[in-house]
């Protein structure tokens, strides 16, 4: 189950942060997202891999904690997407698919003429689409 998704701007400013848990652990999830920013910076500045995976938008598993797995994605425009999940065995393809759909939703949201670039995303349509993507995560529905 996905417990948290976040969109972080190129100056590490939060653009969208949403947790999907009943319990009152939003602060803890925000902390995890915050920590993962450093990991992303490290990955991007010291790329170990070469070849086709170099500069790929999907950054893969950033770091596992006791209860969570954190995945990252960095767009060409230096916007970071972060996904926190409690699932232990996550298929790579599922995560890639998630980020692909999430990116499309994000692009539609920022193409809204009423959205101010660099400000938080307040669109309700975007929130609905994100929760829809989160709900269908890992169900194997190829969209």
């Amino acid at each position, binding site marked *: 189950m996905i417990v948290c998704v976040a969109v972080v701007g190129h100056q590490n400013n939060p653009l969208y942060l949403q947790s999907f848990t009943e319990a009152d652990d939003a602060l803890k999830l925000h902390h995890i997202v915050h920590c993962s920013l450093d990991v992303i910076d490290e990955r991007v500045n010291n790329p170990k891999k070469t070849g*086709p995976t170099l*500069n790929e*938008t999907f950054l893969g598993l950033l770091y596992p904690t006791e209860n969570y797995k954190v995945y990252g994605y960095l*767009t*060409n*425009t*230096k916007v970071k997407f972060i996904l926190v999940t409690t699932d232990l065995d996550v298929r790579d393809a599922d995560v890639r698919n998630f980020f692909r759909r999430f990116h*499309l939703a994000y692009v539609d949201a920022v193409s809204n003429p009423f959205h101010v*670039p660099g400000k938080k995303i307040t669109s309700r349509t975007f929130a609905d689409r994100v929760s829809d993507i989160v709900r269908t995560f890992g169900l194997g529905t190829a969209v």
Partner: protein
Amino acid sequence: MGREVSESCVDSLVIEMVSAYCNRFYATKPELAARRIEAIGYLVGHQLSERYTIERPRFSDHLEAIKFICKDFWSELFKKQIDNLKTNHRGTFVLQDNRFRWLTHVSIDPSPANTDISEEPSLATAEGKAAQATSMHLYFPCGIIRGALSNLGIPCAVSAEISNLPACSFVVRIKA
């Protein structure tokens, strides 16, 4: 998920936008009109660059980003690529389009309106006016290029030069 847009609609919209800003909103201040049109282009480029870079590896240097603008971005906008790209390798790029779409319908009237008296100055002013009106149409694409590059993390200044219609070149100066 390709959505199609009528070409003639976009052409008309661009022409109408330029004429509205130049002749109605800021009729007496052409510099202000130019800045407003450029700002609209900036937003458009900002949003389009986000969309067209989906599923594309990140660019490692400036040249790659400029190449993306010349090839893929231009193809998406105008169904053709930039014809010639020159650079001095110090942050200045010249993108030349030999048949720029938004200038294909622009023509400069060779015969000046009033030929009866003083032919020479009226010819000069008519040409000057026509050139100024044409250059107004280039602020929007300049803004698009600047917006796209800024969103890709490259702050720059873009200006346009008209050689002979409908060819034109865009000069991109990357800010260090």
